[in-house]
């Protein structure tokens, strides 16, 4: 299971950041606008063969198939995971603990996904997520086609 993003739907409201901060004290997902035309949330990608887990010397970051777990009790805050993450999705404030999305294992659905008002965040495995993204893309094409047909008739 992982969090996937439908960029077409993200409206830069940053509700996911607030929801994450409410649960964890600090936001582990960040949304930024790109050229004022798109907004892109970034959180842990839960890589296969995740570099952060490969370099973690204390075993706090663990690779569990398609998820990268984090156990704060084992973390020594050495910061090597921050330098090893290709996406810049791991954060370590000198005054606090490593911040990385752990998919909220104690919850059925992560609060960021529940909060997203446009359902831009999709929680599922990659097959479920691609299926949903395909369905949405197909429906967008169908709608714009229907609209153009309507315009030609008018």
């Amino acid at each position, binding site marked *: 299971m992982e969090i996937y993003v439908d960029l077409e739907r993200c409206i830069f409201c940053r509700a996911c950041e607030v929801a994450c901060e409410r649960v964890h004290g600090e936001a582990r997902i960040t949304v*930024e606008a790109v050229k004022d035309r798109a907004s892109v949330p970034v959180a842990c990608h839960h890589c296969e063969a995740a*570099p952060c887990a490969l370099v973690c010397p204390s075993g706090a970051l663990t690779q569990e198939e398609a998820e990268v777990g984090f156990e704060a009790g084992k973390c*020594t*805050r050495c910061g090597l995971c921050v330098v090893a993450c290709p*996406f810049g999705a791991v954060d370590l404030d000198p005054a606090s603990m490593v911040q990385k999305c752990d998919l909220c294992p104690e919850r059925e659905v992560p609060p960021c996904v529940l909060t997203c008002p446009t359902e831009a965040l999709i929680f599922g495995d990659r097959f479920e997520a691609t299926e949903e993204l395909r369905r949405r893309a197909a429906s967008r094409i169908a709608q714009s086609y229907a609209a153009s047909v309507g315009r030609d008739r008018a």
Partner: protein
Amino acid sequence: MTDLDAKTGVGPIHGPWRVLLVDEDECIGCRACSNLWPEISAAVGLSDRGAKRTIRFPRFIEEFEARIAKALAEACPTGAISFGLADESPGEESFALTFEMARCRICGRPFATKKEMEYIQDRIPAPVQARGSAASWMNLCTGCRQDVGRKAAARGLIVARSWPRR
């Protein structure tokens, strides 16, 4: 007695005469030791001045309990920390190690020590590092890695949304 016990002096060696030893070649300057125990962070002075990181270690550890010494040695990712006898080491109160920093290719910010980067390079598969290619993320700070990822993800969407509307 385990290796760690031998290094930290738990067992036959303990008491006020123990001193902190750091292997200069092994230490990568990651700050795990200074992060671990807030009570010693004041003694371990850090400065990211310029493109150098300086970590200052106290030499004498008489105020530490054995379990803290052990935890410090355990936290060190490269096993650079050990404890020895005071009369076998220089008598200074503290000592400093200085590390060259790697700078972000885009924003120029020093974001990690060069030795940290070497440590990471040794552990990540070469294809993931994408070194030598223009797209390699290894020489970027975390903020610029996010920016590059965002721009790449939004490229198609921006083209579509810039299309003149009829």
